[in-house]
């Protein structure tokens, strides 16, 4: 199991399109992926879970990944968040 803390840095936070992208990427891996804010924890493969986190800009997020392909999964998810979900700005 590996974990890493990142900060949501896109303007709109984990909203519709960003959440959908994150779930799509998490779904490509066998590993379990969870996201934890200081309030709650969600399964990154669950769109309902990710939306319920309602993580706005500047929310610190702990990504935990557990499974055979955990390293690659973590790296891709981290990159997506750091890259502001490809939203530019």
């Amino acid at each position: 199991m590996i974990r890493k803390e990142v900060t949501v840095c896109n303007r709109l936070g984990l909203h519709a399109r960003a959440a959908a992208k994150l779930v799509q990427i998490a779904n490509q891996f066998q590993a379990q992926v969870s996201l934890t804010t200081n309030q709650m924890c969600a399964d990154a493969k669950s769109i309902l879970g990710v939306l319920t986190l309602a993580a706005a800009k500047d929310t610190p997020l702990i990504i935990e990944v557990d499974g055979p392909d955990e390293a690659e999964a973590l790296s891709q998810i981290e990159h997506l968040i750091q890259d502001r979900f490809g939203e530019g700005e």
Partner: protein
Amino acid sequence: MTRLTGTPVSPGIAIGTSQIILVQEIPVVKTSIAPEAASGEVERLRKALEATIGDVENLKERARSRLSEDFLAIFDAHVIILKDPALLRGAKARIERSGVNAEYALQGSIQDMVRGLMATDDPYFQERAMDVEGLHRRVQQHLAGPLPEKTTWTSGERVVILADTLTPSETSTLHNAPIVAFATEHGARTSHTAIIARSLEIPAVVGVKGLTKTAESHGTVIVDGLEGLVILNPSEAELAEYERRAEAYQRHRKAILGQARKEARTVDGTLIRVTANLDLTDEIGSALAAGASGVGLYRSEFLFLDHSPDLPTEEDHLGYYDRIAQAFYPHRVVIRTLDLGGEKYFHAVLDRTERNPVLGVRAIRFCLRQPEIFRTQLRGILSASKRKNLAILFPMITTLQEYQQASDHLEACKRELKADGVPFDEHIPVGIMVEVPSCALTAEAYAPLVDFFSIGTNDLIQYLLAIDRNNDSVAHLYDPMHPAVLKCIAHVCDAAAAEGKPVTVCGEAAADPMMTPLLVGLGVSELSMTPSSVLEVKNHIRNLSLRACQKLAKKALKARTGAEVAELVKTAVGGAKG
């Protein structure tokens, strides 16, 4: 024999065998299962979910070439929802703990999902929650066993799809069916069915009341996408009549298609520009093929809705407008600035609690309160204007002050772009949309200032006659031929003519063959309409004489009722032909 009427959304006439797509509730029966059967139930459900995901992905692949990326993203959202582990986990818990069947467990789990999505602060997924019902039906169908719909079709078969409503998940049941027409009980011009039908160039009628109650599968049905008619179990005589009409329409279509490139001049030589109303960039191809001389109205709302809950960036605007400007060059493309609000569209930036949104903060009122959103769009339009074939249209102007404020924003944006060294059309034409009676009646105040007027008849009629367009009980009062409507149009045309400014009509009236002679006679020089009507209207104009139209308009302005106007038009058109 039963005749039903609805709204024609895609032209043509087709005769075929009805196939009803069941969208009705599938009764979900609760049964108890033994503990040892639980794992079998879970497996059955898992397979049904997988099959449904397969359906959605299949549909997305088949739609890929026809629909925009933003439209396709809806399919992805559906897949993500179906794959949500909470869905299967919730159902599994119900099967194992409460000993219920997969169907019943799924229903509970789906309800949780809908509630959960609705509870999030995310308008995009709240909207998708409404789609979940359709997805649920599909999973239930898979649970019920092999799908009841036909999946193979013999060659030469002609299928007419009759449905309550068609969502992407319903359409996914139609693998390679030889569909010749659609008719649905609900829906509008912009609904999924209408878009698909127009892209397939087959007739479609929507909003057909009582369709699913009356119709049966495997019967003969006629769909008339010109008149908005559905005929179930037609008589021999009717069949013969419509076969003749369908053939005549094909011949006529071929003939006018040959003249698509030719401009539309009246018999006495006056050029009337016939242009397209566009919502989606998807329709560029069909507008060009129909011979539209540009775009009289690009409704930028869809660009905003596609990005909801985000807002389109300046680059997003630039990208869309540049594409259209390029596609239609050298013809002109009129971009209407954001007309969000009212009854039609919802976006996260709007106030959901407005009590009377049609009279509330919509269109230019919204833009002037949110200058950042407005200026982002104006800069986007300007940056795309370097070919000098774009124009700007401000919607729902009610007072001169609003027009001046909007122009000030535009001038400020021009200065910003100049400072940034971005090339743009410094003399980009600016027009106002005449939709509010106060604007129509004071048109002379605007005439020296604007480059053109564009009359949006749909809203003008709604505001002038006090009729809610979406209220069936007052729909019969909605009358483009009402003399008050004609007087407003005449007033705008006269005020514009005094300053040498052109007038466009871009409501549904522009595509109404009964209205064409009146509008031309009143002095309208451009008609902008849905691309599928362009060919017909151009052809119609070639048979009109400007002088006869002017005479007709003069008489019509003296009529007391819409019915009297209709009579005058019928006599005039009939007289011209005979």
